[in-house]
């Protein structure tokens, strides 16, 4: 046994360091299905508290939708619980293939391959399609899973300033000598809620013979007129070479992800992507649920329309109350507080008022940009939003930040 007292002490020291830096993460136990109204045990051991959930990625309110739950039950009955195999040995069922076909149709791409999660999709895709003679040029605010995937790939890595097309063009010129070039972005950025300018990006990539990669995890199902994603919103369906996305957010919220895009790139993933080759894929019960979700979304835009209306109502309510918001029109609505401690204090007080919303600060967001990130759902009704607005106003008054400028808040609470 190599786990001596000395080794244990070293890890205990590291954990203390995380605590001292204020970065120690604690789970809150939810005792109910995921929904707008949840029951939470926090701190651990305390009695259950009913709160309105303002921080789930449950954008379409489908995580506990009765039709999705029924479909999952049926999947369990007809296709069993697990596959006990990777895809290419004996871990592929007809419904896995059906889901790949349906996702391809939904996103308007050429082909799709499922992954256990979008984290796995992003971890595996770059290494599968790029080599050391190539370059990856990523927006500086892409998701951590993309950064991990880029680290696993031998292609050269570079970045461009967030959303800055001029800087991207300079980088495309700088790397003109590379065999393959891939420009990498999130569709909707998870911390700021802003949207990539995919139309301009696709045009630049065409000019400089580069591929476009989009992680649309915070967009699939509700961004764009029929909820296909950021590429639909920007009018570039069919022009994005790789889309990765998750089934763990709007599309049912259970788990799983995929790489969807050009036929050859998807085939390269099937041959080479390690998370696909060396791990079981999505369980039949989840596949059955996601098939039902896509069925619901293909028949009607009702849920994404409701989400759009809820988002507009929420944004206006917060703005009228005098909060500073990040610009945007997605259901990710960051309420800017700038100071890290203030973001934690406001989050704690909101919880006391029955509103579950988390404060984010450095290093999750840049220094001096602490915030409460609120996320709107089609599962919210107006009475949920009204109650949450009342709580935000009450807490905002307590800290005297309503109607104050960024400068005034920083003067009062520090940067």
């Amino acid at each position, binding site marked *: 046994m190599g786990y001596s007292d000395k080794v244990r002490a070293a890890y205990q020291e590291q954990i203390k360091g995380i605590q001292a830096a204020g970065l120690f993460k604690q789970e809150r136990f939810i005792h109910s299905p995921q929904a707008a109204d949840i029951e939470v045990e926090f701190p651990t051991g305390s009695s259950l508290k009913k709160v309105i959930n303002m921080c789930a990625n449950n954008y379409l309110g489908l995580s506990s939708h009765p039709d999705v739950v029924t479909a999952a039950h049926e999947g369990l009955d007809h296709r069993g619980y697990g596959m006990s195999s990777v895809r290419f040995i004996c871990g592929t069922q007809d419904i896995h293939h059906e889901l790949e076909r349906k996702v391809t149709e939904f996103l308007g791409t050429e082909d799709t391959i499922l992954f256990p999660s979008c984290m796995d999709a992003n971890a595996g895709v770059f290494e599968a399609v790029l080599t050391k003679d190539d370059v990856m040029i990523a927006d500086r605010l892409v998701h951590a899973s993309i*950064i991990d995937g880029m680290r696993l790939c031998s292609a050269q890595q570079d970045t461009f300033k967030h959303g800055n097309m001029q800087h991207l063009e300079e*980088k495309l010129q700088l790397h003109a000598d590379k065999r393959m070039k891939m420009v990498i972005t999130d569709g909707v950025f998870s911390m700021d809620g802003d949207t990539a300018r995919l139309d301009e990006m696709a045009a630049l990539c065409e000019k400089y013979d580069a591929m476009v990669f989009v992680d649309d995890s915070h967009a699939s199902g509700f961004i764009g007129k029929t909820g296909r994603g950021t590429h639909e919103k920007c009018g570039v369906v069919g022009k994005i070479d790789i889309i990765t996305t998750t089934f763990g957010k709007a599309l049912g919220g259970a788990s799983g992800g995929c790489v969807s895009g050009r036929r050859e790139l998807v085939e390269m993933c099937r041959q080479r992507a390690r998370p696909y080759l060396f791990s079981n894929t999505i369980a039949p019960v989840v596949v059955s649920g996601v098939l039902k979700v896509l069925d619901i979304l293909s028949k009607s835009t009702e849920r994404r329309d409701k989400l759009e209306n809820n988002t507009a109502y929420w944004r206006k309510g917060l703005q009228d109350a005098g909060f500073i918001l990040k610009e945007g029109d997605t259901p990710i609505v960051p309420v800017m507080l700038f100071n890290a401690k203030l973001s934690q204090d406001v989050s704690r007080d909101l919880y006391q008022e029955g509103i579950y919303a988390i404060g984010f600060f*450095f290093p999750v967001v840049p220094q001096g940009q602490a915030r409460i990130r609120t996320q709107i759902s089609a599962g919210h009704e107006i009475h949920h939003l009204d109650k949450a607005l009342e709580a935000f106003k009450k807490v905002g008054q307590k800290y005297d930040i309503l109607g104050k400028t960024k400068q005034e808040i920083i003067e009062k609470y520090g940067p």
Partner: protein
Amino acid sequence: MDEMAQVVLDYVKNEYLEDEDEEIDVDTPLISGGIVDSFSMVSLKRFLENKYNISIPDAKATPEAFDSVTRIVAVVREFIK
């Protein structure tokens, strides 16, 4: 400030700062301060190599060695013949 420090500082400001109001000097922590991430170091290294016609081994281009303009200038001087 010597000329090389000014050149590197200007490059870092232009390449990495998002906020025009943000002020940095030659001793501002760049990587540990979250201004330059490890991916972006690639283009910084490429800029230095092209500008000063040098080759910096990867082992020398560590986050610690690139953590401020002053440190970067010291690395560059080491490789200028």
